[in-house]
């Protein structure tokens, strides 16, 4: 398979960027999207050019590192998938691909397609945990938890912190990310005690980082690779 790629290149956070066009040829249909970019980078090394920087690590859809907007869609068009889990057979009929980084002022571009997502870490630091110290935990079965609650908590806890929800949101809101963490703990008795304070702190921090607010576009849940529901946002708002 052959593709024409328009890839966003930007030297660093402070410089301007632009699309640069590349052609890749003889790509096997079972090649993953990121392997296709590896292949392009190998060609660039052959030519003596600087490689395209893009984020990746586990390449199995769980670490949350990869982050590309492909033809306008964060993590591509395929549902419930991270970029690293896309394969070129999914693009059989699209010969021309536009590849961009996450676009949000709270996620500054560092180089080419890689952005800084430390704002997410700071939101977690503001309260995205249960304040328990090592050594003080009671016997694990001393507190029973309704299975449905445990399952719901799990659904929220599967967030991989990739930031696709921010990238797709017209307000660049981090509401789904924040709400998922808040709701994960709110569902569990050991987390519920701090719920209200946690929600206030995390939402304040989200605003301080420059993320927008939710105005119910609901694009976030459609691009979320873990299919986290916007009902988390409603539950979060009920806590305030």
């Amino acid at each position, binding site marked *: 398979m052959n593709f024409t790629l328009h890839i966003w290149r930007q*030297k*660093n956070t402070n410089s301007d960027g632009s699309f640069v066009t590349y052609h890749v040829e003889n*790509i096997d249909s*079972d*090649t*993953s999207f*990121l*392997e296709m970019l*590896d*292949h392009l980078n*190998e060609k*660039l*090394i*052959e030519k*003596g*050019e*600087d*490689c395209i*920087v893009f984020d990746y*690590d*586990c*390449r*199995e859809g*769980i*670490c949350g*590192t990869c982050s590309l907007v492909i033809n306008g869609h964060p993590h591509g068009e395929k549902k419930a998938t991270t970029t690293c*889990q896309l394969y070129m057979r999914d693009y059989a009929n699209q010969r021309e691909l536009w590849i961009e980084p996450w676009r949000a002022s709270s996620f500054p571009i*560092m*180089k080419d397609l*890689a952005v*800084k*997502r*430390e704002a997410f*870490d700071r939101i*977690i*630091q*503001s309260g*995205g*945990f*249960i*304040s*328990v*110290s*090592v050594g003080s*935990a*009671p016997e*694990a*079965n001393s507190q*029973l*938890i309704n*299975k449905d609650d*445990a399952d719901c908590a*799990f659904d929220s*806890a599967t967030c991989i*912190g990739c930031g696709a929800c921010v990238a797709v949101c017209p307000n660049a809101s981090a509401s789904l990310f924040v709400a998922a963490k808040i709701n*994960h*703990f709110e569902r*569990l008795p*050991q*987390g519920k005690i701090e719920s209200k304070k946690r929600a206030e702190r995390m939402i304040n921090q989200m605003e301080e980082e420059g993320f927008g607010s939710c105005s119910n576009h609901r694009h976030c849940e459609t691009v979320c690779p873990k299919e986290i529901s916007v009902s988390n946002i409603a539950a979060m708002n009920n806590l305030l």
Partner: protein
Amino acid sequence: MQKFNSNVPTGPLENRWEKHKFDLALIAPQNRKKYNVIVIGTGLAGASLCATLGEAGYNVQSFCYNDSPRRAHSIAAQGGVNASKNYQNDGDSTWRLFYDTIKGGDFRARESNIYRLAQLSCNIIDQAVSQGVPFAREYSGYLANRSFGGTQVSRTFYARGQTGQQLLLGAYGSMSKEIASGRVKHTSRSEMLEIIIIDGKARGVVVRDLITGEISSHVADCVVMCTGGYSNAYFLSTNAKGCNTSATWRAHKNGAYFANPSFTQIHPTCVPPTGDSQSKLTLMSESLRNDGRIWAPKNIEDCDKNPNDIPEESRDYFLERMYPAFANLVPRDIASRALKGICDEGRGVGSIINDQRLGVYLDFSSVIEKIGIDKVKEKYGNLFDMYKSITGENPYEVPMKIYPAPHYTMGGLWVDYNLMTTIDGLFACGEANFSDHGANRLGASALMQGLADGYFIAPQTVANYLARGKFEEVSNDHPEVMASIDSVKSRIDRLMNAPKPKHSPDYFHRKVGGILWTACGMARDKKSLEEAVKSIEKLKSEFWLNIKVTGSNADFNQTLEKAGRVADFIELGHLMCIDALDREESCGAHARLEYLAESGDAMRDDENYGYVAAWEFNENGPELHKEELNFEFIKPTYRDYK
């Protein structure tokens, strides 16, 4: 340098850790803030250690190469975490978990360490639950367990297929709490490239800022490495792409012994590679072997046929044929070896890579016929979906294809009972050390070990080291600090400016990986290992002559990052082969072909090889130090799966 002494306590096994803890020196709460500890890596071991040291009141500085601590590769662990809670009343106990773990490791680990691990296993579950880790539960509200990896008790706690993710997010949350408190200062996207040793003690590190390329030094009173394993030495593995040996290898070159480097675990049920562009392999849960039947065509001519067109009598259910008692459920190493053997014979299926088809069938048609497609969906639905998304094939209709892949490394930095390496003040936790898994790791015990080290063991032993030592202040212009910075800079300079730049880092990485996979994988022999040692030496010279790194070193440069890591994998690969050569026995995950009985059974040699091989770096070649393993409480037995 500290003496090569395991510092294992004496007395009854059950009391050793308690007694040892009492003998460890403490630091009063008000004095802890005067001590500085550097932690490298933020996976389960690193994040849990940062959290615990921060809570205790120490000053902690941590670094990771990822863009957030939450992305460390512990996140990808699927199966579960063992603990001897005996919630299922099926006869589990600390003693049984200890015995299963040491037997699983084929009696190549210390009794004292493993017993401590089994003792701490229950505390890990308590801690994780209190952090909000959503483990699976019964309708009654109690925690659920499952049997995992062939054990006879149900002691594995799990969070769907994402146990590693949930445990890591728990540790990351606790670490974040300490970052907010100011006691932990964390820097992401920073790679440790050198260790600073002053007066024989580890006193700091040199790191490279991966975004700006800036090189900086950081000093402290001691350093803890929680930097994971080195399966990526094989190039294709189930590890994340960034996982590397650079931190542990720098420690090794500065005097830390490297133990059992050839002890690696190769997992049988991975999605096979499909072509030359393959960048990594994906593991699928071993539970698939509970119901799937593994087979390959009897005749080479059938290998490119549609499997559904191959009649029953032309199929070789080779595990059922070779191991009638355990059949498709034989341990990982035996399954992996048999699978590779079939492909080496030319009876593999799937894509042809380097003239060989790498895969065999894992067929669910009989179980679908027996219990119905809905039941199978309920049991394995998510795994089947994952397989379909990677391969584009529907495993409900066409048999899956599987092939083994490197998955975990039992070898690592040698540490004593206090988790300290042979360098004073340099500790190693989690997969980065060699400690608890012997020659083969039991399922669901990696998460247990990483968290036991980080939450419960290292915080005590690091405090003891700090309490007993005197630490003169070190400034950032100390000659040793400057020398370490210079060594990092000159190495980067060599990577950027090879005499005849020709090949990319990936080119060399695939080469060294190929050599290791062939000679130092599951089945080894003297001749191929000796050849591999020579080929790797040649590859190392080629690397430094021909490595081509484009772009600038004062910039975000992933090619440069890779080049540095590959240079270290080449040197480590060399040591892996030398270690495998030394060990003239078949043991744990590895078969030395010269030491297999006619029946194919492994021939372990306790008399001559009942030791931990700890290698000292030496410019003229590695020097072997042996830590003899004494079994005071249990009697080593032999495995038999026929």
